[in-house]
């Protein structure tokens, strides 16, 4: 397996993964979307709400705020020593009270743990004269399996690395160059050249417009079957580097667990065999 990083920012990454099976890349994608936990507001006590939004709408908006999460200091409620009742290990309380006229932002939430803060400035609600909200929100760890608000990865996807081949029969008519929506092809020195192969969206419009393609295979869009361009982004709750490494760890943990189950089944089958 080889990794080549194309872009690596705080929140978004793009890299080429080569020498792997499609199933492996897909499991990375699925782990980024649904397996890596993050904190999100899950329970809200509303003491006062005279705003234009119903309590439920307000609670939904609160839930969708990304919270900066230190995954080493929190555990999932289902795995917590308190048994899921709620303690400082598995939940954080945030309070909010505001009175209009003003717009209330996510940054006005007061957290019991100063390291847990909203990652984005989200306008929660616009309050007019006499409007008031006062609430306590409980944030818990969760995974994307249960609700999209716990999804750390956003728009995670991959495609095969494109491979464009142009044969010697090409007469450089330029039809394919005009047809390409991504500007992958150019004419230089009376031959069609590929300038940015990875930008190709595999739409194969160039194959269709080429007149000579009806006789020979002049231009052909293919893929490298074991190389993938992976793009991933986070909602800001954890850095992208951590999201990718944690999703890889998650896959290896689950593979090990599966190995454990299988060896138990193997042992039981062997014991049955001896007994009969």
């Amino acid at each position: 397996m080889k990794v080549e990083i194309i872009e690596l920012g705080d929140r978004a990454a793009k890299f080429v993964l080569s020498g792997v099976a499609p199933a492996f890349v897909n499991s990375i994608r699925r782990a980024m979307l649904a397996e890596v936990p993050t904190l999100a507001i899950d329970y809200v006590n509303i003491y006062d709400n005279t705003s234009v939004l119903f309590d439920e709408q307000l609670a939904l908006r609160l839930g969708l705020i990304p919270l900066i999460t230190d995954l080493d200091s929190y555990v999932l409620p289902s795995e917590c020593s308190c048994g899921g009742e709620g303690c400082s290990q598995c939940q954080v309380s945030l309070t909010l009270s505001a009175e209009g006229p003003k717009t209330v932002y996510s940054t006005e939430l007061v957290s019991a743990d100063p390291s847990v803060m909203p990652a984005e400035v989200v306008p929660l609600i616009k309050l007019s004269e006499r409007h008031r909200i006062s609430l306590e929100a409980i944030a818990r760890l969760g995974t994307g399996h249960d609700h999209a608000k716990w999804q750390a990865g956003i728009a995670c996807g991959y495609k095969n690395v494109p491979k464009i081949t142009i044969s010697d029969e090409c007469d450089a008519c330029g039809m394919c160059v005009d047809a390409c929506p991504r500007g992958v092809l150019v004419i230089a020195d009376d031959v069609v050249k590929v300038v940015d192969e990875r930008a190709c969206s595999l739409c194969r419009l160039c194959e269709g417009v080429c007149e000579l393609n009806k006789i020979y295979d002049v231009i052909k869009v293919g893929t490298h079957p074991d190389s993938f361009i992976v793009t991933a982004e986070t909602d800001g709750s954890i850095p992208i580097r951590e999201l990718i490494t944690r999703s890889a760890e998650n896959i290896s943990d689950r593979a090990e667990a599966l190995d454990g189950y299988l060896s138990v089944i193997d042992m039981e089958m062997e014991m049955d065999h001896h007994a009969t």
Partner: protein
Amino acid sequence: MIPVRCFTCGKVISGAWEEYKKRTKLEDPAKVLDDLGISRYCCRRMMLTHVELVDESSPYY
């Protein structure tokens, strides 16, 4: 109120709404969206198609 996240991909887009609303009075929406880092068309439609109604209903609450 503008939805907190994009319905399709889940990117938090509401933070960009106020600047978008102010700037599109004078500028081209496409340029403003590019500036604000809203690149995917799922997120762009969240901004382009949003109708702000809080101010309409707030006098009746």
